[in-house]
């Protein structure tokens, strides 16, 4: 059963279309990430699910029920705000108890539930503290406990780690994943950080300019990006300009060609190759499918080396495993050869589709 279903949601602010006919589905118990750059409409979408904004078109279903006409209060969603929105004049336990008190729950029951939640978010001993006396990570956990107190059907988190520093962010992200495994409430979190999305979510919904670009798990989105935007937003990518001449790909600014295995008769100007750094293999010797280039810089990155290369007029980056690196005596200016393990070509015009087909046949792309 679907925990959250978003169906053809559109939201305009004046002339600006913040969310453009978006649909997706989050299964019950899933942790999904809404990933996109700032201004992509992902937060608006989250607020529409919560009922904080009304959509101009479309419907929202929570656990199979159409909640579009329901007011926020009646939707029973948990929401963790980007800046937590803790009630500053209330203690930690008062904050957590708020939702239960509104529901006029029994005092004893409230107390017990609050204790449970404080235990869950590991804030024991902080019951009587005010939000201003807590660190960012602690506030975040209070916000989470407060949202979970009313046992919501779905949990929505708006940039939950946005205002924390790197170290806390990483720990907390992992902790939320663990917590989710235990509490197992359908959750959606908004983020602009691809690493967060990849690390902890079951499903990633990539959003750009109010539209869904791709939906899939981390591997799908990273390995098989469906658009140029997804490829470049999720992970690092090299952008190489090239032309296709008969049975070769000719990289712009060089005479070097990558020969296709089979003969074809397609000519196409100005295509864009997208290649992940780890898919560029650097070699010492040339073969049929390699391109010569010059090393522009070498950077130690701990477990691997990052190598800047110049291919014609293009600058590309490659990640070289340490052991490969030590085999050769590479330094700035050394001439080496690179091979593309796989790459993607994006552009939707008719001609490109043909190229795409062809490359698919040739095994360069899936």
């Amino acid at each position: 059963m679907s925990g959250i279903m978003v169906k053809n949601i559109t939201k305009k602010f004046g002339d600006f279309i913040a969310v453009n006919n978006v649909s997706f589905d989050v299964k019950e118990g899933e942790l999904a990430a809404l990933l996109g750059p700032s201004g992509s409409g992902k937060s608006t979408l989250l607020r529409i699910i919560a009922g904080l904004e009304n959509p101009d078109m479309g419907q929202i279903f929570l656990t199979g029920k159409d909640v579009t006409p329901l007011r926020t209060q009646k939707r029973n969603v948990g929401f963790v705000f980007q800046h937590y929105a803790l009630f500053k004049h209330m203690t930690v336990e008062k904050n957590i108890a708020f939702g239960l008190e509104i529901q006029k729950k029994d005092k004893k029951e409230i107390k017990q539930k609050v204790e449970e939640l404080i235990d869950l978010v590991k804030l024991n001993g902080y019951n009587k503290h005010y939000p201003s006396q807590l660190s960012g990570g602690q506030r975040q956990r209070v916000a989470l406990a407060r949202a979970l107190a009313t046992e919501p059907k779905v949990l929505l988190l708006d940039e939950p780690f946005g205002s924390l520093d790197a170290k806390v962010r990483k720990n907390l992200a992992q902790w939320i994943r663990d917590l989710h495994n235990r509490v197992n409430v359908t959750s959606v979190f908004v983020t602009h950080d691809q690493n967060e999305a990849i690390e902890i979510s079951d499903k990633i919904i990539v959003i750009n300019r109010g539209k869904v670009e791709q939906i899939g798990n981390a591997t799908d989105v990273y390995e098989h990006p469906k658009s140029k935007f997804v490829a470049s937003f999720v992970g690092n990518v090299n952008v190489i300009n090239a032309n296709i001449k008969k049975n070769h790909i000719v990289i712009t600014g060089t005479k070097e060609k990558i020969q296709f295995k089979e003969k074809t008769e397609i000519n196409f100007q100005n295509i864009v190759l997208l290649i992940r750094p780890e898919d560029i293999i650097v070699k010492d010797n040339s073969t049929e499918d390699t391109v010569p280039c010059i090393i522009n810089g070498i950077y130690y990155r701990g477990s691997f080396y990052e190598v800047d290369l110049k291919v014609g007029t293009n600058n590309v980056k490659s990640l070289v495993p340490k052991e490969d690196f030590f085999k050769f005596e590479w330094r700035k200016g050394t001439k080496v050869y690179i091979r593309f393990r796989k790459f993607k070509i994006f552009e939707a015009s008719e001609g490109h589709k043909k190229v795409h087909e062809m490359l698919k046949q040739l095994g360069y792309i899936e």
Partner: protein
Amino acid sequence: MNSSLKRFVKGNLTLRGIALFYIGLLIILPVIAITTEAFKGGIPNLWKQITLPQALFSLKFTFIIALIMLVINIITGTATAWVLVRYDFPLKKTINALIDIPFAIPTVVTGMMLVVLCGPRSLIGEFFGKHGIEIIYNKPGIILALIFVTFPFVVRSVQPVLIEMERDMEEAAQTLGASKFKVFFHIVLPTILPSILTGAALSFSRALGEFGSIVIVAGNIPMKTQVASVYIYGEIESANIQSGLGTAVVLLLSSFIVLIFLNFIQRWSNKYGK
């Protein structure tokens, strides 16, 4: 936004209606009423009322006195704020707490305090009297009263800006070789200028309209020590509504100009960002 919250806060027409009604009844309607009344006899007649010798004198006198007060208050107010923020000295906390006293004390009481202190029968009054200087019932007394009632304005508007002002700007200027005076005039002053002007505008408008303390301190002699508000009050008392209206409209207009000026400063200082 959720429709219910929107209805309650953002688009709540009942709340807005109440607010507008209140402002309309207490501010807009009275202003319109007095303006209509003033223009009822036509502009030439209004002009005649304003330029009656007594009326015209009271207006001129008020503006001149207020300007003198303004100069003194800008200097002493800024100095006080500076000392309270930047230096440590005994009694600092007490003095800081007492700055607001002029706002809390009724203006009539203020006037009486000054009479007791500087009146002809007091020590100070007698001393100056011997040298032919009359403080109370004359200009110095009026200026003194105005300075007293408006003293907190400049101090209280400059103080927070000075507290928040980052010292590193000054220190940067010092490392670049700027002298203390240069630092003050090129770095500090431009930063606190908007707040000085805000305080100054507030005290100026207060001084133009001040009544309670002045009516006691000034001799209120027409063409000599009568300020505009005292003149208007006199006209109302003697049922010369029309001649009071002219001066009142001029004062009202000045209040609006001060408000516009304040808005202008606010926008200007917002441009610097926070």
